[in-house]
Each structure stands twice: as structure tokens, then as C-alpha cells.
């Protein structure tokens, strides 16, 4: 199949994450990546960066080639990159675009919903509240609901969660 170059995506990406421009495709990231090793190279951080540089938006966010969601976020690629490319942050940006394209694992949406509703990724269950009492632990005072709602409306997160 023919791969379409998305010039807008390429330009936006290179401006947004300037460190992308420093990549010279040496492959150190993939050499140190535990997921690349376990998937026999199917998952390959160097190839994701290459597609970002070339502007292959569709390949990354629709076809998921490679599948950016397989990144374990272990930060080894960032640690070892000789050029200071911020790979994990770049992958987050790709994932944000995947979310907008409706291509994301459900667990991320579930966590986003929990944060939207309660401000916490893991709300307290009744069993845990009882367990905390038994251990003599204090009640946690967390952020007010209205404050979280105001903030998440401002950043556009509430709208985003409703639209995906």
C-alpha cells in the first residue's frame, strides 16, 4: 500500500517536540528496548521515531505500525539515546493522536474516566475504607470535586472523554 505523507503532522510534530530533529536513526533505542526484544522487533521505537520524522501519521495512528501502545514506558530508550531525543514524550503525543482517532486500549479510557469523576486513578472501595480503619489510618483529604471539574473543563479533557 502507498503511505501518505502528512506534511501538517510532520511540521507540527517537529515544532512541538524539537528533540525529534536530533534523531539520526542509530537504533540505540531499539537495541535497549525490552519490548523490541520480546516481540522480535515488531515493536521498534526507532521506527516510530522515523515515521514521526517522515510525517507518516496514518501509519502510526490508524494502522498502529508499529503499535505505540506496546511501549512499556520503562524510559530505557530515553536514557540511552545519544542525541537526547525525548522518545516517551513523543510517543505520548502519538498516543494522544491515536486517542483522537479512536485507536486506544480501553483501560486508558477507564483510568481517564476515574480521574475525571473523582480526581483519582483508583477510587477507594468500601472494603479498603474498612481495612484502613482497622489499620488505624486517617481519612485522606483529596481535591474538591468542583475544582477538578473546573480544571478539566478548561483543559478540554471533559469534552475529549465524551467524544472518544
Amino acid at each position: 500500500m502507498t503511505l501518505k505523507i502528512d506534511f501538517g503532522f510532520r511540521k507540527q510534530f517537529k515544532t512541538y517536540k524539537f528533540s525529534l530533529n536530533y534523531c539520526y536513526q542509530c537504533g540505540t533505542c531499539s537495541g535497549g528496548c525490552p519490548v523490541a526484544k520480546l516481540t522480535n522487533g515488531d515493536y521498534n521505537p526507532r521506527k516510530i521515531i522515523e515515521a514521526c520524522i517522515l510525517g507518516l501519521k496514518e501509519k502510526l495512528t490508524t494502522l498502529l505500525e508499529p503499535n505505540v501502545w506496546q511501549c512499556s514506558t520503562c524510559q530505557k530508550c530515553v536514557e540511552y539515546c545519544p542525541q537526547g531525543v525525548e522518545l516517551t514524550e513523543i510517543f505520548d503525543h502519538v498516543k494522544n493522536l491515536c486517542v483522537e482517532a479512536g485507536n486506544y486500549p480501553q483501560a486508558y479510557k477507564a483510568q481517564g474516566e476515574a480521574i475525571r469523576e473523582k480526581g483519582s486513578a483508583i477510587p477507594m472501595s468500601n472494603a479498603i475504607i474498612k481495612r484502613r480503619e482497622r489499620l488505624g489510618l486517617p481519612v485522606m483529604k483529596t481535591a474538591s470535586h468542583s475544582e477538578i471539574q473546573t480544571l478539566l473543563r478548561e483543559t478540554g479533557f471533559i469534552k475529549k472523554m465524551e467524544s472518544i
Partner: protein
Amino acid sequence: MEYKLFWGCTIPARIPFVENSARKVFKKIGLNYSDLEDTTCCPDPTGLPAVDQKTWLTLGARNLSLVNDYNNSTVISLCSGCVETLKTVNHILNVHGDKREEVNKYLTKIGKKFSGNVPVKHVGQLIYENLDEIKKYVVKPLKGFKVAVHYGCHFLRPSEIIEWDDPDNPKTLDEIVTALGGESIPYDNKLECCGCPVGKSDEELSNKITMQKLQGVADSGANCMLVVCPACFTHLDFKQKSLNKEMETQFDYPVFYLTELLALAMGFKPKDLGVRYHVVKAKKLLLELGFMD
């Protein structure tokens, strides 16, 4: 120096016995701390930025803004993920003026402001830096504990932002174990991920990573594991049983959070710490080593 404790989501809401051990240890050593109140999720560095980076930065900055009012205080967290988020948000907003401006535009709506430079420290760092003093409280050395130390990812990397220990050859946690009278056992894949974050998108892959890790522990002769992150804790503790079922392995390694081992060495009873709530039961090991009657 006053410390503000950022507890995060996982420890209070899933493994409160870890919080319990930390509070007991802090009281014992006379740490000047109080809980940082009115917080949200840090948010999870492996979750929310993937959905919406801007919101992740904003909520992280809001959490940091809560400390603006406390001059000369340092944020302490028991979670490597929270530490990573808070340090990275600090870093990004200090380096990128445009992002800081945008985030502050949102924060103004709730009467808050990110001023930058809030010092954040992992409890593992705090303990290591005060190890000589803390050692004085050890009344029951961890004799017989053959510990597979698991550093995890975000305790060390990216080192430019985390600024703690050597990412290729870390030693702080091993030294703590030794100082407490235990033995740190080398094992294969010691510096690899626990497998937790990628479980949100690919469980099979996550299992492979975890299997590798646990196999390394099994081959090493260790009798327990040490972690400094609640995600690593829940994953390595909860997963052993299901992997044993699926893969016909026989993993049975109690996982301890750093402050649990410290508390045991300080003479606290497993019963009072809530060690019974672990999924992989530590009772047999603790009986054998004389830490339980």
C-alpha cells in the same frame, strides 16, 4: 525542613498496609512531616499523558502548586510513578515557558499558580540519605532475608530528570538492605521493568516481562523481593498466583515494600503492620526467620 507527604492513589486505595508501615517508620525516626492534602492523582505517568498530555501537565502542576505555600518544604512520595510525574512536570514547565503559561492560565481559574522548583524526593532517597541515623533504630536485623532488589523503572530513569542513583548500576537499595542486616541477591533481569504499565494495552506482553523477572528471582536463590513502587508491588505480588496457574510455574516470593522491611527491622510486628494482606503470604518466611511467633 518540613516534609509534605504526597500519598498518591495506589498506596492508600489498594495497599494501605504499606502506608501503615511508612507512618510507623516516620514516627519512629521522628520525621517532621504532614500529609499533603487536597491532591489529585499525580497523574499516572504511564496512563494520563497518553490520553491527554496537557491535562496531565495541568493536574501535576496543580499538585505542585499546593506546596507553594509551604516555604522550605520538600514533597516526599512512596511511589516512583508519582515522583516521576511531579519531577517531570516540574522539569517541563521550567524549561518550556509557553507550556507553563498555558498551564497557569488554567490554574488561575481555580485560584492556583505553578511557581516552579518544588523539590520532590522519593522515600527511598530520603532513607538512603539518612541511613546512618536510621540504622540506630534497627533492633532486629534482617538476618536470613535473601532479597531480590527490584529498582523498577521510574525510580532511576530518565536520570536527567530523576537525578538519583546510577541508572546502569544502582546500589542505594542494595546498601539499605545490607545496612538492615539482610542480604541482597544478584539476579538476572534485575534492572528490567516489572511488566505493569504495558498490561493496560497488552496483557500477554506484560506477562512475558513479568515472567522473565520472576524467573530471574527464582534462579537466584532469593527468598523475597524488595520494591519501592506501588505499581511494582501490586503487579509482582498479585501476578505470581495467576502466572503459576497459566504457566505452571511455582513462584512464591513475598514482596515487601521498603518501609515494611524497615519496620520489621525496627521491631514492629507483622500483625501490626498488616503484612497478612499481601497476596503472596509472607507468614512462612517470617516464621522461619523468627519474625513471627
